[in-house]
C-alpha cells in the first residue's frame, strides 16, 4: 500500500493520526475487534463516511496487529488509505480532492474569484472541506474514546502536506473573502496541529476542539480574523446532518 501513499503524497494531502497518549501494545484484544470498532464508530454525516471503507474489499487484515482499508478511485479523484492498530493508533492519509476535481478552467475561475494574480499553477483548499474533515476526525476520535479505546488521554494530529502557495476558497458558494488567503509556509514544510486531550474533554468537546483546530489551520493560510460563529453554524449543520 506504500505505492498508494506515495501517490497521495505527490499532491496536496492530509495525514490524520488518532492515538492514546499511553502506549499499550495490545490495548485492543484482536484484529476482529479493531474491525468491529471501525465499523461501529464510522462517522456518517454526509455521502462519504469517515473513515471510508472500501466497497469491494472492505476492511482487510494488513498485518499481525492491524487492519486497514483504502480507496484508489481515479475517476472520482479520491485517494485514501488508513490503518488501525491493536495499540489503538489510527493513521489516515487522504489526497486533497481539490487537486483532482478542479479542472484547469475551474482553477483559473477560482483564482480570479479570490483575486489571486500572477500565479501560474495555483492550488486550492476548500475552507468548508477543512471544517468538515477535521470535525469528522475529532468526532471519530471521540467515539473511540467513549468506547475506552484511547485511554485517559488521547492525541489527535492533523497534518496538511504540499501546502506551499495553496490558497483557500469557498467551493461552489458566493462567500466573501477579504483577501486571497495563501499559505506562505516554506516549500516542503507541512502544517501540523497536535491536540492532547483527556477522554472526557474529547467526548464532550470534540466539536469545539475541531472548530478551534480548523481556525488554527486557516490562520496558517494568513486568515487571522476568522468569524468563528459562522463556522460554528456550518459545523452544526454537518453534525445535525442538515447538509
Amino acid at each position, binding site marked *: 500500500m506504500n505505492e498508494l501513499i506515495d501517490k497521495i503524497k505527490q499532491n496536496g494531502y492530509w495525514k490524520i493520526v488518532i*492515538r492514546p*497518549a*499511553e502506549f499499550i501494545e495490545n490495548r485492543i484484544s484482536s484484529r476482529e475487534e479493531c474491525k468491529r470498532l471501525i465499523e461501529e464508530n464510522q462517522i456518517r454525516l454526509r455521502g462519504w463516511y469517515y473513515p471510508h471503507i472500501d466497497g469491494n474489499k472492505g476492511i482487510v487484515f494488513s498485518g499481525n496487529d492491524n487492519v486497514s482499508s483504502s480507496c484508489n478511485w481515479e475517476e472520482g479523484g479520491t485517494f485514501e488509505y488508513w490503518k488501525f*492498530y491493536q495499540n489503538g*493508533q489510527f493513521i489516515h492519509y487522504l489526497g486533497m480532492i481539490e487537486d483532482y476535481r478542479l479542472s484547469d478552467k475551474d482553477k483559473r475561475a477560482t483564482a*480570479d474569484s479570490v483575486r489571486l494574480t500572477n500565479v501560474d499553477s495555483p492550488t486550492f483548499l476548500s475552507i468548508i472541506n477543512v471544517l468538515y474533515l477535521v470535525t469528522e476526525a475529532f468526532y471519530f476520535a471521540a467515539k473511540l474514546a467513549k468506547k475506552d479505546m484511547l485511554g485517559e488521554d488521547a492525541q489527535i494530529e492533523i497534518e496538511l502536506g504540499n501546502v506551499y502557495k495553496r490558497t483557500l476558497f469557498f467551493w461552489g458558494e*458566493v462567500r466573501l473573502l477579504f483577501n486571497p488567503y495563501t499559505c506562505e509556509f516554506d516549500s516542503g514544510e507541512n502544517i501540523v496541529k497536535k491536540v492532547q486531550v483527556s477522554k472526557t474533554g474529547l467526548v464532550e468537546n470534540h466539536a469545539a476542539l475541531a472548530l478551534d483546530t480548523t481556525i488554527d489551520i486557516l490562520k496558517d493560510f494568513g486568515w487571522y*480574523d476568522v468569524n468563528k460563529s459562522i463556522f460554528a453554524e456550518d459545523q452544526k449543520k454537518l453534525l445535525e446532518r442538515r447538509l
Partner: protein
Amino acid sequence: MLSNGLQQYILHGQEETNIEYKESMSWGDNKTRLKIIRGILALANHANGGVIVVGVKERDGIFEPRGMTKSDYNSFSYDKVAAFVKNNSEPMARFKLIRDTMLIRNKSGNGIQEKRFCIIQVAESRELPVIASKTVLYDTSRPHYSSNICIRGGAVYIRPEATIESREILNQEEWRELLYRCMEKIKDRARKLVETDAIMSPQEKKPKRNDEAQFNRVLKKDRLI
C-alpha cells in the same frame, strides 16, 4: 477590468445583508458620504463584512448595473473615503476601495458597453463592534429630529436579515448575536495567551504522558511516516 468574483456582486441583482447597492453618485456630494457611511458602519459589524457597490440603480425593485458617470467615478479615492470613515467610526472600520470597469450587455441585447463601478469592501470588525463616533445630521440647519439623524454618536449599526437595511441595533436578539461574535473573538485571544504560557498555573504545566515516539516507531516500521 473587475475580477469575476467582484462582478458577481454587481450582477447579483438584489440587496443582501452583505451587499448594498448605490446609484452613481459623487463623493464630493455630502449626501453621498452620508448614504455610504451608515452602510460601512453596519457592514463592519456584519459577520464576514460585505460590499457597497456604487453604480447600480434601483428601479421598481430591479437593480440595474448602469455604471457611474466619469466625474462621479473620479470623485472616489481611498484617501478621501478613509478620512471620512476615520472621522465617523470607532475603531475605524477597515475597508478597501476597488475602482474598475466591467463589460455590461445593453438592455436591447445588441451591444456591450464598458461601465465604471466603485466597490467598497468592508471587513468585519476585529474584537469590538464598530460604533458611530459622532452624530451626523442630514441637514445641519435643522434640529436633531430622528428623521434628520444620519448616524447617531455611540450607536451600533447592523444589517439585519429581516429588513436588509443599515440601521441601529434595536433589540436584545440582535445584541445577543453581535456580542456572541465579539465574545468568541475575545475568547480566542485569551486562549492564545494560555497557549503561550502567559497565564498558565503550575498545576496545568505538569507534563502529560506522551508515548508519541513509541507509536511513531510502529508507523516507521510499516513505512507509514
